[in-house]
């Protein structure tokens, strides 16, 4: 792998950029791997990367039915934060956020992490109490957040209307080191680093069946033939139910469509991320100047990566009250992704009823921010059978009634 650097850019400029080479290889599948990961989204690729980096396991294939990062990883609104309430969530999301801080250097790939600050508006008394409690919890967990006043909100976001008639801004939970990153780059950066360790990233290779022998996993059937493995990781987000059925178990998961939209590009007007959970809308401004807007999810099972117009209308209507200046903006694009919602709205990182088969799913509407931490924990779980980061997120918690109740933080979007 050629290292990217300022020197390399200068060198290539002098020879018509002919020396760059592919960022990752496109090999033919082998007959056997130590580990197969299904799904080349951020979580699958990060799992593979940390298997190699932290445990020296590099005889690994990542199988992707479409193209790398073409699932939710390339469809999300890229908000990164770790201001969760419960200890297990704060631990894994903060691990992820702190890895994001140096991810560009670690991967030698610019993921454009921008810790511009994330603000969660409190627009009802219930939210005021909820976010104050979260700020206290975060202080105990070592996650830096603070409760800020409406005046401070206005100072940070001049375009906001803090005394709207229906939903006045009563304050906010502020995480100064939260922010955004370039979603495709996160997938590409991990893919390039995996490929450099000799791992195989195989695109357009759909897993169609899971082979079992003597009660443990033996390999997978794919559209490019059967491939054997010792361990299997299912990391397919919205398609987890489909893969679980192939492996012979069911999950506490339902797949629904979540959508987002962007406006035409405008001059810089807001340099933090603002989330308004009461009205189900959130917004940030991309480097290109587009306002990136996310909203609510469908309430019914849906595998079509589309959205519906009435959700767009609801979201935009709500945001216009809080940001009156966007009322005349034209919207450019709208799209959807299939998110995997669990019974308690928290993720699953777990062994499964099938020996040797592991699953990482249920990140639902909010798993871009957790990619590095999730990959870190999942790799440890797959390599050693145990991980402090993932312990609370096992499948058995539903049978045992040990839910991780984060629905306040992650029930809607982002």
């Amino acid at each position, binding site marked *: 792998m050629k290292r990217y650097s300022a020197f390399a850019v200068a060198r290539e400029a002098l020879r018509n950029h002919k020396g760059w080479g592919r960022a990752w290889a496109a090999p033919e599948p082998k007959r056997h791997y130590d580990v197969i990961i299904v799904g080349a989204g951020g979580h699958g690729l990060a799992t593979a990367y940390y298997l190699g980096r932290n445990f020296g396991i590099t005889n690994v294939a990542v199988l992707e039915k479409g193209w790398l990062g073409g699932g939710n990883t390339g469809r999300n609104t890229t908000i990164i934060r770790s201001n969760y309430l419960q200890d297990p969530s704060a631990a894994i999301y903060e691990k992820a956020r702190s890895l994001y801080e140096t991810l560009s250097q670690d991967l030698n790939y610019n993921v454009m992490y921008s810790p511009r600050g994330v603000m969660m508006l409190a627009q009802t008394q219930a939210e005021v109490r909820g976010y104050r409690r979260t700020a206290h919890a975060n202080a105990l967990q070592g996650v830096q957040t603070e409760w800020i006043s409406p005046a401070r909100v206005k100072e940070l976001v001049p375009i906001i209307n803090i005394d709207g008639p229906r939903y006045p801004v009563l304050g906010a939970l502020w995480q100064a080191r939260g922010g955004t990153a370039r979603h495709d780059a996160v997938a590409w950066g991990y893919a390039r680093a995996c490929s450099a360790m000799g791992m195989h990233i195989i695109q357009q290779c759909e897993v169609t069946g899971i082979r079992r022998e003597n009660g443990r996993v033996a390999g997978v059937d794919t559209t490019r033939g059967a491939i054997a493995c010792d361990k299997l990781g299912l990391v397919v987000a919205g398609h987890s139910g489909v893969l679980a059925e192939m492996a012979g178990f069911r999950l506490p998961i339902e*797949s629904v469509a979540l959508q987002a939209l962007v406006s035409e590009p405008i001059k810089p007007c807001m340099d933090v991320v603002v989330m308004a959970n009461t009205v189900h809308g959130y917004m940030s401004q991309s480097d290109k100047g587009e306002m990136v807007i996310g909203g609510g999810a469908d309430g019914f099972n*849906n595998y079509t990566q589309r959205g519906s117009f009435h959700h767009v209308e609801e979201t935009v209507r709500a945001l216009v009250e809080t940001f009156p200046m966007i009322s005349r903006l034209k919207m450019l694009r709208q799209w959807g992704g299939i998110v995997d919602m669990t019974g308690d709205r928290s993720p699953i990182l777990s062994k499964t009823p099938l020996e040797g088969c592991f699953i990482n799913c249920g990140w639902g509407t909010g798993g871009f921010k957790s990619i590095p931490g999730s990959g870190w924990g999942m790799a440890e779980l797959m390599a050693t059978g145990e991980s402090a980061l993932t312990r609370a997120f096992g499948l058995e918690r539903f049978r045992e009634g040990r839910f991780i109740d984060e629905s306040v933080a992650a029930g809607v979007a982002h």
Partner: protein
Amino acid sequence: MLILHCPNCGVDADETELAPGGQAHLKRFGPGSSDEDFHDYLFARENPRGVHFERWRHAHGCGKWFHAARDTATLEVFATYSAQTTEPPQAVLDAIAARRPGWTWRHES
């Protein structure tokens, strides 16, 4: 936007008029059942990419519950039918089989 025919009041209702109620025809397991059965009843879902039976309520209309048979990958609606049943009627199964040759109803134990 989904449009479902409400079999209770006869209205073709828009999605915004309806409240989704999740997977239909779950077999209820309550006190006295095994942990496994109770867990599955509460949490385990089929979540298929394809034919799905589900509950809906005509929330901003007649207020009544009904069932729908739908394809989650194409959004095709095969039929809507009464909620007063524990299994899809034969006519609904036939309508789905006509559109999805080879498909069969699971008949849960």
